[in-house]
C-alpha cells in the first residue's frame, strides 16, 4: 500500500505535493519501520560512485546512474528485464514507495527518478534537499550494508514517449518552448562542457534555437531544497515565458541536470507535457545539419530550405 503523502505548507502549494518528502518525514517514516516490510524503499543516487560507501542514510540502497541505469552498448537506458532485476534486487516491488535522494541538490536523484518514471513506477518521490540537507541537520549516516529482502518486480516495458524526447522530436518541436538548463557559458557557446568538468566532446558550442536559458541550479535553494512554488513560477513563467498548458522540452548536456528541471516543471508547477531530451547537447552539438544559435540571445527559428 502506498504510504500517505507528506502535507506541509510549502509542499501544498505545488501541483503534485506527493512527489516530495522532507527530511523530517523520512526520519519519522524510518523510525516507524516503514522500510522493514518493503512498503518504503530508500535509494541513494550520487554523481560519485563511491560516495554511498562513505556513509548513507540507514537502510538506503544504492543505485548508480551510470552502471545501473544505462546500457553500456546501446546509448540507452536499461531494458525492461534488466530494470526488473535491478529493482527486485534492491527490494523494490511495483507497489513500493520509492524515495530517492543524492548529492548535489538531488541532481542525480532526479535523474534516477526520471528513469523509474520511464518504467512507469507509480510512487517514486524525492527527498527535498537530498543528502546534503540530511547531513547538515546532523542526522544519522551509516556504512552498514542494509538488509535487503529481494522482491519480485514485474517486467514492464519502458514508455518513453510521454516524458522523453529524441532528436527528431526536438526538431519537430521547434517553435514551442525549450528550456536549456546548462551554465550560461555552455548556452552562449563559450564552452561545450560544464565549468570544471571534463570535456565531453561536442563539436559546436551554443544552444538549440529559441531555447530559454534557466540554469538548473536556480530551481534549488541554498540548502538544496526546491524553491517555493512562487519562486519557481517567477523563474519559468516569468523569466522563461512559459504559459500554463505549454508543451515543454528541457535539455542539458547528457540529460541529468535537465531531469532536475523536468521534475520542477512536471510535479511542482504541474505542466502535463514536459519531456527531457537526454541526447541533449552531446547529441545536438554534434549532429549534422541541425541548427544552433550562438551567444546570449535565444535566436530565431531556422527558415525552411
Amino acid at each position, binding site marked *: 500500500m502506498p504510504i500517505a503523502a507528506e502535507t506541509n505548507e510549502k509542499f501544498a502549494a505545488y501541483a503534485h505535493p506527493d512527489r516530495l518528502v522532507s527530511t523530517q518525514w523520512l526520519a519519522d517514516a524510518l523510525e516507524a519501520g516503514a522500510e522493514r516490510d518493503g512498503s518504503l524503499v530508500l535509494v541513494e543516487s550520487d*554523481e560519485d560512485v563511491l*560516495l554511498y560507501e*562513505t556513509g548513507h542514510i540507514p537502510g538506503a540502497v544504492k543505485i548508480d546512474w551510470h*552502471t545501473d541505469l544505462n546500457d553500456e552498448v546501446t546509448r540507452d537506458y536499461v531494458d525492461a528485464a534488466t530494470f526488473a532485476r535491478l529493482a527486485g534486487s534492491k527490494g523494490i516491488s511495483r507497489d513500493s514507495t520509492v524515495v530517492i535522494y543524492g548529492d548535489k541538490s538531488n541532481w542525480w536523484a532526479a535523474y534516477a527518478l526520471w528513469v523509474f518514471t520511464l518504467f512507469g513506477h507509480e510512487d517514486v518521490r524525492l527527498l527535498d534537499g537530498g543528502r546534503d540537507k540530511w547531513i547538515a541537520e546532523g542526522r544519522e549516516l551509516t556504512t552498514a550494508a542494509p538488509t535487503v529482502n529481494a522482491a519480485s518486480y514485474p517486467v514492464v516495458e519502458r514508455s518513453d514517449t510521454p516524458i522523453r524526447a529524441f532528436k527528431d522530436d526536438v526538431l519537430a518541436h521547434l517553435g514551442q518552448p525549450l528550456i536549456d538548463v546548462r551554465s550560461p557559458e555552455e548556452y552562449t557557446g563559450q564552452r561545450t562542457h560544464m565549468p*570544471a568538468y*571534463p570535456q565531453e566532446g561536442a563539436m559546436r558550442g551554443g544552444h538549440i534555437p529559441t531555447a530559454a536559458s534557466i540554469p538548473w541550479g536556480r530551481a534549488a535553494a541554498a540548502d538544496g531544497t526546491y524553491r517555493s512554488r512562487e519562486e519557481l513560477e517567477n523563474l519559468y513563467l516569468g523569466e522563461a515565458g512559459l504559459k500554463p498548458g505549454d508543451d515543454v522540452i528541457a535539455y542539458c548536456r547528457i540529460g541529468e541536470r535537465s531531469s532536475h528541471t523536468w521534475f520542477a516543471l512536471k510535479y511542482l508547477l504541474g505542466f502535463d507535457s514536459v519531456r527531457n531530451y537526454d541526447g541533449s547537447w552531446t547529441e545536438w552539438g554534434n549532429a549534422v545539419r541541425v541548427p544552433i544559435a550562438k551567444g546570449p540571445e535565444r535566436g530565431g527559428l531556422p527558415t525552411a530550405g
Partner: protein
Amino acid sequence: MTTTAALPPALAEIVDDFQALEEPDRLLLLLEFSRGLPALPERLSDHPELLEQVVECQTPLFLTVETEKGDDGDVIRLFFKAPQEAPTTRGFAGVLHEGLDGLPAATILAVPDDMPDLLGLTRAITPLRMRGMSAMLGRIKRKVAAAG
C-alpha cells in the same frame, strides 16, 4: 597494452592488488585509498594558489609537485587536495600518491599513460570517470617535466 612490468614497484604492487580482487572489492579498495590520501602540509593548505586544478576531473582536484633532495639524487613529492565528498577522485589521487610519491622524475615520466586502465575499474566506475584519473596522471607528468 601495458603490463605491470613497465611500472615502478610500488605502483605495480597496487595494480596487482586491484587485479587480484573482484570488481565490487576493487571499488572498496579505491575507497581505502581515498581515506589514505594525506592532508596537505600547512604551507600548502594556507596557499591554495600554489596548487593547480585538474579541470578534467568531475570534482575539484588540485595538485602540485615539488623537487626534494633524496639520498640518491632529486626525487619528486606529490601533493593533492580533493574534497571528502569526492571519494572516487580522492581514491585515484591516493593510488598515484602511494605509487609515485618520492620517485625520481625520470621514473614518473616513464609511467605509461594508460596505467589507470590496469586497475580494472573501467567497467565498475565507467569510462567517463576513468578519464579523470588519466587526466590526473597526465597533469602530474606535465608538471614533473616542467619542474625538471
